[in-house]
């Protein structure tokens, strides 16, 4: 990596070439990747999901397999060991979707480090890239996450309470609290959103050397518990000038927020698909009044509505991702995907439990977990980007 370290200019994945025809078919490379990820999600993550949710922790073996699949490296430029020659936001969405079909919390735990790597690929300077990206491209990427959301009602990502005060020497002093940071307790590297004189900005924080300026406590929530969410407090934490990522560029921050929203939508699509497949089988098998409950329109139409809204969210998410990877404006489209997720993904979670009745309310079935996880979609900010 020494040659890259000498580069004055950062390496960037070029934007993808826009397609010339309307097409909803993943390319062959994406198909192979999705097949592998979905296989991992359904065979390994789904069976582990109940206990991971209960333990608020994702087993190390699953994290290792996700890393082996290369899921954290899709946003790393080739010069730093990445494997994709251009931005691949759609591929990122497909991966998150496939993984969340297994479990949203585990998917979040697996993908969070890749979010930091993608941010460094997009906006890191040469020194930041050389310092961190090779590790993310390696076999055992470090635990890392984006710390953006704050524990406040009416949180506005554009009006952060966390501040980075510039000192006379050009360094920064970080103060504030971040909520629901995936794998926050074990994260070695955080990308923290903080306001610099009112401008939202991004900072790299190495947790190992933070000392007393950083404290972590467990922050378990309603859902995505397998992601071991943590609350992180910064108390006069000194950061070097080189910790600033993206030079407080408002566009960088706006894209960070939008790519995070997109990530949550992709996760919701995967979990929504899990709900659809599960309830479709259940309502056919469950009988009441002498016949399968799927013979009733009130039941069958609920399943149809899940299918409708799921496909809706999927396509809007794909479109936003397609605009992002080709370097076009996607802020509005990501916001629309998020608005759909907030309304319809949550409803899918609710209907999933409803269709199983009292059984759905118990831990004998995964729908109660999906109910909790799907409430995150369209609501949480940050944590990871694609």
């Amino acid at each position, binding site marked *: 990596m020494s040659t890259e370290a000498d580069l004055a200019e950062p390496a960037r994945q070029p934007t993808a070439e*826009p*397609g*010339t*025809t*309307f*097409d*909803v*078919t*993943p*390319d062959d490379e*994406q198909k192979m990747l999705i097949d592998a990820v979905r296989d991992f999600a359904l065979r390994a993550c789904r069976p582990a999901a109940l206990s991971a949710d209960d333990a608020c922790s994702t087993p190390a073996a699953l994290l290792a397999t996700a890393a082996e699949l290369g899921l954290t490296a899709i946003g790393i430029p080739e010069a730093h060991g990445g494997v994709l020659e251009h931005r691949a936001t*759609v591929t990122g969405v497909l991966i998150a979707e496939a993984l969340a079909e297994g479990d949203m919390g585990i998917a979040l735990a697996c993908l969070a480090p890749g979010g930091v790597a993608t941010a460094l690929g997009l906006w890191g300077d040469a020194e930041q890239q050389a310092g961190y990206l090779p590790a993310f491209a390696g076999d055992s990427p470090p635990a890392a996450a984006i710390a953006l959301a704050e524990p406040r009602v*009416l*949180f*506005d*990502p*554009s009006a952060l309470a966390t501040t980075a005060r510039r000192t006379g020497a050009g360094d920064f002093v970080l103060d504030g609290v971040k909520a629901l940071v995936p794998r926050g307790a074990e994260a070695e590297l955080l990308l923290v959103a903080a306001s610099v004189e009112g401008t939202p900005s991004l900072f790299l924080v190495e947790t190992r050397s933070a000392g007393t300026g950083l404290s972590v406590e467990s922050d378990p929530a309603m859902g995505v518990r397998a992601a071991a969410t943590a609350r992180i407090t910064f108390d006069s934490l000194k950061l070097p000038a080189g910790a600033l990522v993206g030079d407080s560029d408002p566009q960088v921050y*706006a894209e960070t*927020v*939008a790519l995070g929203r997109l990530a949550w939508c992709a996760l919701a699509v995967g979990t929504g698909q899990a709900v*659809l497949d599960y309830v*479709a089988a259940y*309502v*056919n098998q469950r009988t009441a009044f002498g*016949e*399968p409950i*799927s*013979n009733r*329109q009130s039941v*069958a*139409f609920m*399943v*149809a*509505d899940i*299918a*409708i*809204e799921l*496909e*809706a*969210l999927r*396509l*809007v998410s*794909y*479109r936003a991702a*397609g605009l992002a990877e080709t370097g076009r404006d996607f*802020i*509005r*489209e*990501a*916001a*629309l*995907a*998020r*608005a*759909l997720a907030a*309304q319809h993904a949550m409803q899918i979670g609710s209907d999933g439990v409803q269709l199983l009745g009292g059984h759905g309310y118990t831990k004998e079935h995964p729908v109660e977990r999906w109910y909790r996880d799907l409430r995150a979609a369209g609501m949480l900010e940050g944590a990871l980007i694609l």
Partner: protein
Amino acid sequence: MINLEPPAKLDALTYQANMAALHILRPISRKYDSAEHAYPVELDALAELVNQANAQQAGLNTNDDPEPASAEPSGDGNINGRNLASLIGLVEMCWGDVGLMLTMPRQGLGQAAIRAVATPEQMSRFGGKWAAMAITEPEAGSDSAAIRTTAVLDGDDYVLNGEKIFVTSGDRAELIVVWATLDRAAGRGAIKSFVVERDNAGLRLDRLEHKLGIRASDTANFVLENCRVPKENLLGSPEITTAREGFAGVMQTFDNTRPMVAGMAVGVARAALERTRELLEQAGAEIDYVRPPALQSAAVAEFIRLEADWEASRLLALKAAWMSDNHVPNTVAASIAKAKAGRVATDITLRCVALCGTVGFGEDELLEKWARDAKILDIFEGTQQIQQLVIARQLLGKPSSELR
């Protein structure tokens, strides 16, 4: 590769359709909403333009050009052809006016049914003509297999008897495609479609409906009294199939037409959203896609939610039409597009009226008209509930005998 942007080759078509909608349809929108049943003579010139454009490239419901040049697959075999082009044209035209679009001369859905199964000989007689569809009866709406109109072979003619309602463009069309049964005891397999010339003496116009919306488009009720048509006017095979296959073939028309109706809904809903945005902004509201909607005004938050549903219905319609172009089975996708677009167009246009208050409700704006027009799109070509049935039956593997 996944790319949900319409191809650049359709930009010109989109622009032309939008210009026609803006300069020809919009100025007469209110006029023909008020003057229900008056024939919109302004459309004759537009229809001529559209047909000329169709002769050169894939266009709006191309009638006489079975394989437009744009149906050539791209390098990876992906086709953006007639269905996608038609959909995109329809969106623009219905952004102009749904009712006027529905009564565009020679653009009726009946041609879709003819084109789907007509022989070359039939195409030479019927292709390019203005064709309406007559399916619904007083006692057979969504359950179209229950139709009672009969067709009896008598010499070289079929003799049709029955009653048909809700025939869009029924008064103005040159041809009526009539669904009738060869044998009421034989079920779906005996239902066939017959082309009846509008001036057939056995086809009596009973009345024209007065409607909530799409008032520019005539909706005719007919009585068929010993209506004789040459037996060569039967579309498809005259065989009565015992299985559901024959009827399934008829139903396949919906796979192509339902995405188009979804496109109509997308068009009218966009009109309402665009105008509402203008009015909201004039009133001082700013729509910000970065700030969480909950932190903005309730009106803005609602607008963003409506816009999200609109974007979803637009992409679902594009996908369903794209599947038709690529011969991918799309029954479920077509119903998903129709269901989502139908319900959100109604929701969007009604809520846009409310967002604009008395201005939205009054006749100085077209918002109230769009809200009336939109409702039919959640009803014809299969109601919301029929789409849900289609989707659920497929997803759950249920025959209609179990999931009724």
